[in-house]
Structures are given as structure tokens and as C-alpha cells.
């Protein structure tokens, strides 16, 4: 049996599945039950300054995108940080950590961008016995308007500065949670590293309007006739999060900086993908909010089955394993030729591949009178669109044309050696470099 124990920044937890800072981790009642259900760790719902807590709206806070059968694909929220008093949260965290010493408990923090504020609160929170801190530089709504959250996360200098303050205030690990609402994720990641962060976690939610109420002409969720942009999360954001994680993992400047992967983790496979791209563990929020805490049981059993099947013994063996294969477009092998192949046995003759290729691609699929679909090798550019639109998994596949065999489209034999754009004759820079 694979060992799922996670040791992220020296913080051990029974498995790499943590609940992200959000409603599921808002209070003792939830967190105890989350641990009992099997979650390895939690990042407590973001704490703010002492004194009167923030207030949330009293109308709807969530909007959603649904797929077939109302499957929740994307969630959007306009919730703020914890709206419960600091002392209450701290007392609860202390009790929980005492009762669950083997589970990870991280404190998420967001206070105004002043040194005194951070240096005052960090040691106070440390007294709970928490295992580390996560600095919330990500919240894109409400808090940002007050100069916190993503307002900090969008300015690398602030990230570096606040991170440094926190590192000076504690010996515990400090994780910097990044906002995806920037143009280049490497800059905030680098700033966090420069400030001394032990790790980054990403992504926080993405600025979004999920839908518009066409009767009231207002964004949803609508409160008294008006709406505002919220933070988008759930399965729909995973591709964006995966790319940002991979960029940090493969960039020489940030390579090696531990990453806690967040954004749309819903199944064991999502988690494995984040980890393959360099995340040391993962955090999930929407999955728990959609299905309840029990969903982690599938993540645990699935990850462990897959690791057993693959012969991986520990989490460390999978972390970052796919990173070397993430490259720039210009280094992709232009001599690698594939062609679409339709399995006539599997084909159900829906004609979607034909419509897609004929109307929007390369007119490389033929349709006979009796609905037999075939690929014309002399037209197929191997774009993969037909594979993606075919409703039958595995019905259309991409066959690699062996070196030496003819590529019917170019009329030339496939060349064995690797050659990329940097040396391609059509590349003006390549010619200049010679």
C-alpha cells in the first residue's frame, strides 16, 4: 500500500489533502468533522484584525455554472474573510490542534498592509499551536477594495515586504497564497520567495461574473438589484491553476519553491495532476462545498490505488514528476507526425467529427452515403479536434507515423530526428542566428 503521509514544509499530515481556507474551515465544528472524515489538514478560514469583525452581505453570496444534470462546474463567491471575532477563532483553533496533533492546522491571515499589524497578530496566532501561516494575498472582492487581499497580491513589492515582516515575526513556516488575477504568476511567486516565504499556495479565486439576470439586468448573485464581481473556483478553474503551478515549478528562478496546489481539485486524479506538476500537496474547497467532507474518501482511495498500480511508494515520488516535460512551444518536435484514426467498430456514426473538421478545421474527414467516416491522411494536420468532439472515448486516436513512412499531407517521408521552431527555416530569428 502506498504511503500517503504528507510532509509539506515539515508539517506532517496523514494525507496530502487539505481543506483550503474558506467556509469549510470556518469553525471548530466544521474542522473537527473534516478531520474525522479524513482530511489531512485545514487552512483555517482567514483571520483578520482584532476588534469588530467584517460583515458579509445578507443576500446570496454564490453564483454558479452548471454542466449536464446541474453538475456544479464553477462557483463564484463574494464572501469576505471570517466574520467571527478573532478571540473565538483562536480559542477554537487551540482546542482543535490539541485534539488533532497529527493533522495539519494552518492559520490564514489578512490584516492591513502595516508592519505593526502583521507583527502583532502573527505571534498571537502562533499561540494556538498552529503548524504554520498562510498569508491571504488573494481574495479578489471586498477585501481588495480595502487595500488587502489581492490588492497586495497584485503588487510584488508588497508581497515581498509583508512576507518578510511575517518571517521576522515567527519561526513557523509561512506560505504565501497567490492571486491568479495578475498577468504573470512568476512575479508574485518570485516576490514571495525573495521575501523568504517557505512556500506559495495557488490559486485563490478568479475575478468573475458567472451570469447575468436577464430580467433584472444585473449580475448574479444579485443583491437588491445589483451584483458585483466575485471569486471563481471549482472544476472550471483547474486548467488555469495547473498552468500557474507548472510555470512556478519549471521557472529557474522559482523552481524548488514548495507549492500547495489549489483550484478545482475535485477527484484523486486532479490531485495527482497538481502534484505531478510540482505541488507538494493540494487544497480543496469547492469539492467539499459541493459534496460535503466525505468526498475526501474517494480522493484517498483513488490516489492510493493509482500509486499502487504505478508502483509509487510515497508522495515525494510523484511530486514534480511531470515538470521536466512542460516546455515552451518553440521546443516541441516539429518532426513528430500523427494522424487521426477512427475505429469503425467503436464509431456510432454521429457525424460530429465530420462537422467539426469539415466546417472548422481541415476538411480531412469524409462521410459516405451510409455514414462511414474516414480520415484523409493527405489533409489531416493532426489537430486533435475530432478526438475532442467525438462522444465515444477512444474511438478516434492519434497514430504516430513512423520515421521513414510517408506523410501524405506533405508528400515527404517522416524524419527521425528532433527539430523545433528555433532552427526551422521559416523562423526569421533562426535564420538570423545562423
Amino acid at each position, binding site marked *: 500500500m502506498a504511503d500517503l503521509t504528507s510532509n509539506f514544509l515539515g508539517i506532517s499530515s496523514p494525507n496530502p489533502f487539505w481543506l483550503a481556507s474558506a467556509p469549510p474551515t470556518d469553525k471548530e465544528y466544521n474542522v473537527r468533522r473534516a478531520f474525522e472524515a479524513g482530511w489531512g489538514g485545514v487552512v483555517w478560514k482567514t483571520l483578520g484584525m482584532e476588534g469588530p469583525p467584517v460583515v458579509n452581505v445578507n443576500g446570496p453570496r454564490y453564483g454558479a455554472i452548471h454542466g449536464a444534470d446541474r453538475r456544479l462546474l464553477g462557483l463564484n463567491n463574494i464572501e469576505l474573510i471570517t466574520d467571527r471575532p478573532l478571540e473565538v477563532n483562536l480559542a477554537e483553533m487551540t482546542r482543535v490542534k490539541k485534539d488533532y496533533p497529527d493533522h495539519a492546522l494552518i492559520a490564514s491571515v489578512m490584516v492591513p498592509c502595516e508592519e505593526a499589524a502583521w507583527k502583532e497578530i502573527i505571534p498571537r496566532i502562533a499561540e494556538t499551536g498552529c503548524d504554520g501561516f498562510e498569508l491571504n494575498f488573494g481574495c479578489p472582492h471586498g477585501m481588495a477594495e480595502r487595500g488587502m487581499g489581492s490588492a497586495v497580491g497584485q503588487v510584488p513589492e508588497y508581497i515581498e515586504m509583508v512576507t518578510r515582516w511575517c518571517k521576522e515575526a515567527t519561526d513557523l513556516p509561512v506560505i504565501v497564497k497567490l492571486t491568479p488575477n495578475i498577468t504573470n504568476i512568476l512575479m508574485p511567486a518570485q516576490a514571495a520567495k525573495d521575501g523568504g516565504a517557505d512556500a506559495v499556495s495557488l490559486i485563490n479565486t478568479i475575478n468573475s461574473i458567472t451570469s447575468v439576470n436577464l430580467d433584472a439586468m444585473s449580475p448574479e448573485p444579485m443583491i437588491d438589484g445589483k451584483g458585483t464581481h466575485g471569486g471563481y473556483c471549482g472544476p472550471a478553474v483547474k486548467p488555469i491553476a495547473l498552468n500557474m503551478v507548472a510555470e512556478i515549478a519549471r521557472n529557474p528562478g522559482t523552481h524548488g519553491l514548495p507549492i500547495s496546489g489549489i483550484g478545482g481539485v475535485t477527484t484523486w486524479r486532479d490531485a495527482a495532476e497538481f502534484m505531478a506538476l510540482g505541488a507538494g500537496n493540494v487544497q480543496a474547497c469547492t469539492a467539499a462545498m459541493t459534496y460535503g467532507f466525505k468526498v475526501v474518501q474517494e480522493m484517498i482511495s483513488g490516489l492510493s490505488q493509482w500509486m499502487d498500480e504505478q508502483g509509487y511508494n510515497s508522495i515525494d515520488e510523484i511530486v514534480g514528476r511531470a515538470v521536466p516535460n512542460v516546455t515552451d512551444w518553440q521546443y516541441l518536435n516539429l518532426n513528430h507526425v500523427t494522424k487521426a484514426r477512427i475505429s469503425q467498430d467503436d464509431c456510432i*456514426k*454521429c*457525424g460530429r467529427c*465530420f462537422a467539426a473538421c469539415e466546417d472548422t478545421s481541415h476538411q480531412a474527414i469524409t*462521410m459516405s452515403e451510409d*455514414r462511414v467516416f474516414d480520415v484523409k491522411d493527405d489533409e489531416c494536420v493532426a489537430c486533435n479536434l475530432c478526438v475532442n468532439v467525438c462522444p465515444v472515448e477512444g474511438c478516434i486516436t492519434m497514430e504516430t507515423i513512423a520515421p521513414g513512412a510517408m506523410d501524405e499531407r506533405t508528400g515527404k517521408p517522416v524524419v527521425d530526428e528532433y527539430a523545433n521552431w528555433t532552427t526551422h527555416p521559416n523562423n526569421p530569428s533562426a535564420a538570423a542566428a545562423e
Partner: protein
Amino acid sequence: MAHINRENGVAAGRLDPTQVADNFTDLHPEYDGHEALVAADRCYFCHDAPCMTACPTSIDIPLFIRQIATGTPEAAAKTILNQNILGGMCARVCPTETLCEEVCVRETAEGKPVEIGRLQRYATDTLMASNTHPFTRADKTGKSVAVVGAGPAGLSCAHRLAMLGHDVVVFEARAKGGGLNEFGIAAYKSTNDFAQRELDWLLSIGGIEIRYGQSLGDGITLDALQSDFDAVFLGMGLSAVNALGMDGEDKDNVSDAVDFIAELRQASDLTSLPVGRRVVVIGGGMTAIDAGVQAKLLGAEDVTIVYRRGQEAMAASSFEQELAQQKGVTLICNATPVGVEGNGSLTGVTFAYTETQNGKLVTLDETFTLPADQLFKAIGQKLGDTPDALTLEGGKIKVDDAQRTSAGGVWAGGDCASGGDDLTVTAVAEGRDAAMDIHTSLMGAS
């Protein structure tokens, strides 16, 4: 415990009213909104969709299903009704398992087609519930057309003609319109008086006058219609039935299945409708199944359908056969009736076994007798008397691809015309196509 009347003979009230009401509820109940969305989502929006080709009225199925999926069932209904004005009835009665759903690629893929019929019903019911009619009449052409028969063929033709601006007069022999929608279709397929509601809704386009109790051949001649109107469409269905040609056919409680069904469809209280304790139905088509199943649902203790050929040769689809078996009806194949037993009243029916030898049906010597209080004959309907001017083909009015008969200015469609299956949807398609051709010929001539 529900009360069951086991009295021999033919008697009313065999079951409790609640039990009867329960038995005659919708065969394919309507979807609620969410169910419809889930069902619609299964459609792949096929290119040049096979289902569309299989639909006799060529409804753009992928389009209407997508319109449901995107929350616009009214637009979906318009897509349907544009091709098939009786899309509501067809959604209920089409043997989809041998039409659109049979060729759905998801049937090929996983043996579970997209439920096209039920989706069609969802769309058309939604639109009809809003009490609107999606079509308006074109400017009046000044032409008038006579339609004979207010069944699916006649109504479809009349509606299309009215829409194109012609004035239509429908001559209907009965006191009520709808044809077999009203008098033939099984009660559990068309509940809550749907046939009449659909008829009223269809007529709300305007420009269609129905004259009830007016029969071609009984005071009205084809010649007269030809001279009084610019064109004539014949959609009078099959008003005669085949006879067994056997002694004893005239005994009490021996009747035509279509009459039993018509009576059932018109009964205001099903518990008042008498049915035998032991019922035998002779035939192998939809009518035999419908008569057998409905007799059973009324409370007949034993119902046996006897068909002279093998089961694979039955005209009723396998879905219909399974339905019968599921309701507790017994199917006996390869047996042909040779005697009707009883003194005055029926007591049993004697059958001889049959066998197919060298492609020919042969009656064997061995016989058996089924005790029976009631016998229904469902061995096929045929054309009633038709005007001499019309050429017949295979017992039906001969028509060409445009539904033209051999008589000038006379078109025909539906069950009475040659070509196509005897189905509601086919009648609708033929009525519509005839209307289009009538329109072309009337407008071209002016």
C-alpha cells in the same frame, strides 16, 4: 383489497374505479423541467442526424432538443410543429422504437436512445399550455379546398393550406374530429382528452371550417367537390374492416377490435364499459395489442392474443409486444381460428396450429379451444367505398410522390392512400406534402 368482479360473460365494473383510473394513466408520463434538461443533454447534435431521416415528417430533432436544453421549449415546439402540426399527438403515439429512436446513435452506442418522443411531448405541451398558436395565416389567396376526413391526414393538410392563405372546408362523417386520434389510439397514450384539445388548438389558426356528419358518398359526391372547390384532398382513412369469413362470426360478444376501442375511447366512465372475463383477440398488429391490453386493464381475467404467423412476423413492434406481456396478456403465435363455439353467446374459440412450409403458411390438423366470453377481431382495416374515378393500388387510393390521385385536382394521403406505413405521423407527413403540392399547383395556375 381491490374488488374484482369474476362473473362469467361480458360485464361492466370488473375493477374499482381507482384501479381503472390507475391502469389508464399515461404510458409515457410527461417530463418535469429538470428531467427534460437531463434527457435533452444526452443528444449529441449529430451531423445530418439519422433520427431526422427516420422521422416521416423530418423534424429537425437535434435542433429542437438543443432548444430545450437551452431553456427555450417554445422555440423547440415551433421547430417541431413547423414540420408536423400534430407533433403533440405524434409525441404520444409514434412507435419511436421503430422510427427516430431506433436509429439514434445512442441506441447504437449503449442501447438507450435519446428519448425523442418524450422530449417532443415536453416541448409541444409547454407551448400548448401557453394557449398560443405559433403560426399565422398568409394573405388570403381566394382559393378554397375541400378536405374529406378530419383525421391526422386531413387536419395536417387543412392546417398547412389555411396557413398558406387558402380557405378550407373539412367534411367529416362522424360527429367529432380527430379520426383515429379520437377513436383509435389506445387510451393510455392520449390522456385527458388530448385529441380534442389538440384539434381545437390546431383550428385556432383560422380559415378552417369543419362540417360534421357529412360523408363523401352519402349525399356528397367527388364531382360536386371538384366543381365547388379549387382542389380536393381525401383523408378518409380505412373505414371498413376485414372479416374472418367463418361461421359463428355473428354470435353475441364477437366484434371488431376497432369498435371496442372506439367505444372505450368515447366512454365517459370506463367502469361502465363491459368486458369479458376471458377475452380472445385475433390479429398481430397494433390494433390487436391495443384491444388486448385495454381489455386487460379494464379487468378481464384472461386475455389471449392469437396470431397466425410467428412472433417475428407480427406488425406490432417488440415494444408493443412486451407491453402486452407486461400487462399480463398472453401471446399465442402460429395458430389460426377454425371455429367459434357457443350457442347464441360465445363460449370459446377453436384454433388450428400453423406452420410455415417453403415460405407458405400451412394449417395443421392439431387444434385447441380457448374458453372465451368475448372475441375481438383485429385482422386489419380496409378502404371503404370510394368514388369510381379513383384508381386503386393494393386496396388503397393510388397516389404519386406528390400525393396526387388519378383524378384531376384530387389529392389523397394517410391510411387511405397508397405508400407509407399506416401511422399517425405518416398521415401527417402526407397531408402536409399534399397541401404543399396543392398550393404550388393553385398558385402556379393563377
